Each structure stands twice: as structure tokens, then as C-alpha cells.
């Protein structure tokens, strides 16, 4: 299980705080380039809001397109953080240690990015004050007795997502406190004062540790229902729509949740590989961690595939002409059938084939490829659920149409990817992306036992 040499605390501090205390040369260039892409995307969004939705490829049957796909995709990515941190923390999996922080921060940023999507997707974003959506930023216009409609998934949705955002920020901050204290002790001037504020008087005494651990476990347990509810509700945005035949399926909630975990954990694995490469953290993000993630992913992917089969099978099971029309469009009509094949291939068969081989799991290049292919696939999955369903909504064949995204939509979608990357890079300058205290704890707890002539790695269990 545990590979690599034992590490000293000093070395851990030095290596993991490297990103914060000094910044590499490429840092500002990369961030600026990404910043420019984000600015361009924001400009495109502004142009779209100014001109009207005519500049997109949306039309009457296909009223939702790239933006909603992208929204669901980023919400999905955000599910990795809690999946890894909370579940693995509760189940005391040793290999979680280097992965949790990056996963949690990815959660926060992808959630923030996701939430921009429905906002610019509304026809009149400046009026969204009537929606619960802008509640965290703009006070609700309650004085006139006008309330949002709680029956709609579009109100459940922001409620769940903001709960999730709040709790995951809390989750990150609680886990960061000991590391902030380390930073406080190693910085001077303004940053010293800021880290001091953030560390909230952390001295590392027994009581503080106890409280921090209890808070972590409690938050883990409390955040899990939120985590499940978020993507369930996102799926119910679709599942509640009776009129779109292929959406109104009972399996959607768990199907989306598992799919989100699938794409999210892949994304985290990719981020970890990237961090290892960029910051040279070979001692922390070791092959065994990526390997463990990949083995977890085989299980998640297979579960996801089961739900996918259920969804498709029961689509045909109904033998209703209107649903068959959608499925026919998805599976038989070009280019959707090609996308469908690519989607199933890159989301399940290619990566799982890779993950089943031990040597491939330990080859970082192949692992990155598998993780990226999963995420391409999961993006396509949402796209192939949303658009064909709308394009063949009912049997009014006169209204059937297709959807071709416009340049504006491509730019904005591309901008969200740049935005998450940029935010991750910027935060790497501010907080350590690998939890120092968690790694140190792991180092303390690791030991080995001898059975006959064999030495087996072992851990101290605290219960």
C-alpha cells in the first residue's frame, strides 16, 4: 500500500509550501493567458446579453443547449471533492491524504463556474432578482410580496447548490486551519497578518486538534446528503419535465450522481497528475494514489454504466412512439449516433480497459488520457441527454429541429475551462494544495509488521 520513503516534517513543509512562498516563472504568463481567455468569454457573454439570444444556436424545440450542458458538467466535476474527502475520510482510506485538498478546492471553483451558466442562460439576467438564484448576492425583492415558485426544480436547484457551495467552502476552511497556521509562522508582513487571521489562533494544542477533527468528521457526514441532493436535483431539472420523453425517467437522480462522481474523480486524478508534474510533488502524489483512484474509478464507472444501460433500456421498454423517436434520433441519426458511440467508448470502455491494467494505472500519461477521455465523455453525456431529447420532444414532427452551437457558445464554454484552471492556479499561490497536516499524520501512523519472512506495510488504527 504505502510506497516511497518516509518523509520528515521539515521536508514536507519545504516542498509543499514551495508554490506559495516562491512562484515559478511560468506562473504569471499562464495566469495572464488564461485571464485573457476568460475576459474574451466574458465579452462574448456580454455581447450575447446585449444582442439577445439570437446569437446562439438555440431555437424553438431546443431551448437549452451548450450552457445547460456545461452547467451540469461543472456541477458534476464539483462532486469529486466531497466524494473523495468525505467518504474516504469517513472510511479512513489512507490513500485519500494527498487528494483531498485539491479535490475540495476543485469543488468550490467548479461550483462557482457552474453557477454562472444558468445566470447568463436566462433571457434577462438583470431580472434574476425574482429568482432565488441571485439570493446570495442581491437581497430578495420581498417587499412587494412576490415570491419565487417553490414547485420548480429551478428553485430547488440553486437552493441545493448554494448549500453545497457554502458547506464545501466551510469544509475547505476547516481543513485549512492547521495549514494556515504553518503559513502564518513562515510569512512576514501583510501576508503574515492575513494568514494569522485565517488561522484563527491555531496553536496546535490537543483541544484544537480534537475540535478540528470533530468538525471535519461532522462536516463530512453532513455534507454527504447535500452532495447527493445537489446532483439529484440537477437531474430533476430534466426528470421532472414530463413533456420531454427521454428525460422523464426515474433513474435520473442516481444516474446523474454516479456520473458526476465518475467525471469528478477522473478530474481530480488528472489535477493530481498535473500537480505532480508541475510542482514536482513525486514524494506526495505517488503512483499508489493514482492507482487507488483508478481502482475506485473502475467501480464507479461500472456503476455508472449500469445506470446508463437502465436509462436506455427503459427508454425502449416503454415502446411509446414518442420516446422511440428520441432514441432513434440518438442512436440512428448522424451525427448523434457517432457522438453516442464516441460517448460510450470514451466514458466507459476505453478508460476502464486502461484502468484494469496495473501497469497502465501506474503510467501517468495513460492515466491522464483516460481521465480526460472520461470528462470528454461525460460532457457529451449531458449534451446527448439534453439536445436530442428536446429536438424530438413530442410527436409533432413539424416542429422537430436540431441544434448547432454558435461561436459565442463555444467561446463561453471554453472560457469556463480557462476560468477553473486559472482559479486553481491562483489558489495554489495562496493555500497548499496538498494538506500538510494530513500528510504528516499519515507519516506518523504508518508502520510495518512482520509475518514470517515478509514485511507488510501497516497503519495504526485509532479506533
Amino acid at each position: 500500500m504505502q510506497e516511497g520513503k518516509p518523509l520528515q516534517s521539515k521536508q514536507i513543509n519545504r516542498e509543499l509550501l514551495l508554490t506559495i512562498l516562491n512562484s515559478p516563472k511560468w506562473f504569471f504568463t499562464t495566469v495572464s493567458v488564461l485571464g485573457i481567455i476568460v475576459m474574451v468569454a466574458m465579452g462574448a457573454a456580454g455581447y450575447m446579453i446585449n444582442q439577445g439570444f439570437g446569437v446562439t444556436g438555440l431555437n424553438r424545440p431546443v431551448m437549452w443547449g451548450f450552457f445547460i450542458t456545461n452547467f451540469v458538467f461543472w456541477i458534476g466535476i464539483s462532486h469529486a471533492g466531497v466524494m473523495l474527502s468525505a467518504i474516504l475520510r469517513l472510511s479512513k482510506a489512507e490513500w485519500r491524504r494527498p487528494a483531498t485538498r485539491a479535490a475540495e478546492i476543485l469543488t468550490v471553483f467548479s461550483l462557482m463556474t457552474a453557477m454562472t451558466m444558468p445566470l447568463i442562460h436566462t433571457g434577462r439576467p438583470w431580472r434574476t432578482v425574482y429568482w432565488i438564484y441571485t439570493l446570495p448576492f442581491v437581497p430578495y425583492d420581498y417587499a412587494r410580496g412576490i415570491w419565487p415558485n417553490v414547485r420548480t426544480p429551478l428553485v430547488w436547484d440553486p437552493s441545493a447548490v448554494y448549500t453545497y457551495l457554502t458547506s464545501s467552502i466551510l469544509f475547505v476552511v476547516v481543513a485549512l486551519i492547521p495549514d494556515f497556521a504553518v503559513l502564518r509562522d513562515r510569512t512576514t508582513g501583510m501576508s503574515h497578518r492575513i494568514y494569522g487571521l485565517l488561522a484563527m489562533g491555531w496553536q496546535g494544542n490537543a483541544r484544537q486538534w480534537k475540535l478540528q477533527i470533530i468538525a471535519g468528521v461532522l462536516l463530512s457526514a453532513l455534507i454527504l446528503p447535500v452532495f447527493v441532493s445537489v446532483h439529484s436535483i440537477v437531474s430533476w431539472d430534466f426528470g421532472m419535465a414530463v413533456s420531454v420523453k427521454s428525460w422523464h425517467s426515474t433513474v435520473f437522480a442516481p444516474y446523474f450522481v454516479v456520473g458526476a462522481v465518475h467525471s469528478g474523480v477522473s478530474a481530480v486524478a488528472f489535477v493530481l497528475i498535473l500537480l505532480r508534474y508541475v510542482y514536482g510533488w513525486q514524494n506526495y502524489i505517488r503512483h499508489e494514489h493514482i492507482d487507488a483512484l483508478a481502482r475506485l474509478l473502475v467501480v464507479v464507472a461500472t456503476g455508472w454504466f449500469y445506470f446508463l444501460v437502465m436509462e436506455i433500456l427503459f427508454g425502449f421498454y416503454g415502446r411509446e412512439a414518442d420516446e422511440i423517436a428520441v432514441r432513434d434520433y440518438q442512436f440512428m441519426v448522424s451525427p448523434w449516433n457517432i457522438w453516442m458511440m464516441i460517448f460510450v467508448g470514451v466514458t466507459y470502455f476505453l478508460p476502464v480497459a486502461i484502468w484494469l491494467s496495473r501497469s497502465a494505472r501506474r503510467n501517468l500519461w495513460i492515466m491522464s488520457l483516460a481521465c480526460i477521455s472520461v470528462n470528454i465523455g461525460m460532457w457529451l453525456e449531458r449534451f446527448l441527454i439534453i439536445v436530442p431529447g428536446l429536438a424530438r420532444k413530442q410527436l409533432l414532427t413539424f416542429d422537430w429541429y436540431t441544434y448547432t452551437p454558435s461561436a459565442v457558445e463555444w467561446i463561453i464554454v471554453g472560457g469556463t475551462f480557462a476560468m477553473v484552471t486559472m482559479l486553481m492556479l491562483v489558489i495554489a499561490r495562496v493555500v497548499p494544495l496538498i494538506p500538510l497536516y494530513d500528510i504528516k499524520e499519515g507519516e506518523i501512523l504508518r508502520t510495518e509488521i512482520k509475518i514470517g519472512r515478509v514485511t507488510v506495510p501497516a497503519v495504526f488504527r485509532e479506533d
Partner: protein
Amino acid sequence: MVTTNKIKHKWGMVVDLDRCTGCQACVIACQAENNIPINTKDYFQQRRAYEWIRIERYWEGEFPNVKAKFIPILCQHCENAPCEPVCPVFATYHNDEGMNVQVYNRCIGTRYCSVNCPYSARMFNYWQPNWPDSLRNQLNPDVTVRTRGIMEKCTFCVQRLRRGEVNVEQRGIEPLTGEKITGERKLNYRQMQEGNYLPACVQSCPTNALQFADQYDETGPVKERFDEANEIVEKRHHGEHIDENHTRTYRLFEEVGASPNLIYLKKVEPFPLEKRPR
């Protein structure tokens, strides 16, 4: 809140498909009445045309024995409207006259209502509406000009109904009998005929394929049809046999369960799915 003169109406429309010739007069009338922007070729090609009522054309048979079938589709003003519960801002709701109404000021354009409309009867304003200067003065002052980014749809020409109500109220007498109106302020079918309070499409239909009235109005032309249709639904609920050969009434996509206030008349199988071959 509750007033004694609360209007008790349930408006309904009956579309006789056997009479529809697909002449598009209703479409033009609607366009003129409701301040709908000019649909250009581009709009049609982008599938973003504003058509509160549209004539869908279907071909039956193989060339050269082809028959064109027409079906006018407009907002069905469903009793159990799928668009209503999904709007996050209550921009669409059911009023107490059986109409599904859209509040333009409230609408933020999430387009969920349109996604959830089985009839694709809801239009989104993709562009800011625009008229040539020469047409500016023909805009109907009773109807709002909608901005870009919101949903709009057929209103059953609610502005005409409201104007009719005002007329009745101002006159205060039944137009035919001359009696004073006491108690409930109620617009009946005769008055509607008198004062041209019909929706524009109904008024303009040359073959009387469209008929519009209060479903509660005993003398009106639609009550009978609605009773018939409701009876079929009731029978199906109780698992009774339905004699399909003796009725022409059906509702569009009955299996979605939206129960529209719009009835089509045509000899069709009411549940075609039930008899689908293997």
C-alpha cells in the same frame, strides 16, 4: 379578496380539423392583433419564428396520391399545465378563467416552460422585436410589445375579453334582453358575438373551423364538445369501454395528462399508442 362579482368562466376552444383548410388567416390575424414581430425568412430558417398560432402541415400518403393535413396549434391553455409549476418566478400561472397566462414583467427567460411544453406553443424572444417605421402605427395599443429575452404565447386574446367586460360593465345591461345585470358580472356567448369579443384567430377563420366560448355557457358552441371529451376521460378512468366510432373529439397528446382547454375534432384513435402493432 373574494368579490361577489368574481367572473366564473372557463374559456375553451374547439378546432374542427375537418373544416380547416390551412389558409393561414388565423395566423395573420393573430400577427396583427397581438403585436407579433414580422417573421422574416431568417427567423423561419433559424426556427425562431413567432407563431402564437401556427398551422402544421402533414402529408399523408405517397406521391402522387398525397393529401395535405393541417392542424392549427396554439397554446392549449392546459388545466394541468406542465409549464406552470416549472417557472421559478411565477411568470406563468393559471387564472380563474381557465386560461394559462404569461406575465411578461416577471419573466426572466429560463425557458423551462417552453422545454416542458408538449405542444411547443411557447415562443422565446431571441431578438429585440422590430417593426419598420411604416408599421409602427398599426401596433395594437391594448397589447404589450414584448422585449427580448422573455417567453410569450397565445393569450386567447385576453385583451379583447377584458375590453368586452368593460363594455358590459359600462353599459350595465344585457345587450339582448335589456335587463339590468345584477350579481355576477358575466360575459356570455351572445355578448361575445355581439361585440366581436372573440379571439382574433376565431374571428378571422373563414370556415368556422375555430370556435371559442365559455365552457360553462349552456348556449355556447363548445360546451357540448367539452362535455363529450370529459365524459371519455371519465369513462377511461373507470375502465369502461369507449366507443371510438361515435366521437370526433380528442385532445392533443392526451397521454401527457395536461388536459388542455382546447379540443380538436377529427376522426382519430384517441389512444393510438394502445393499438400500436408489435
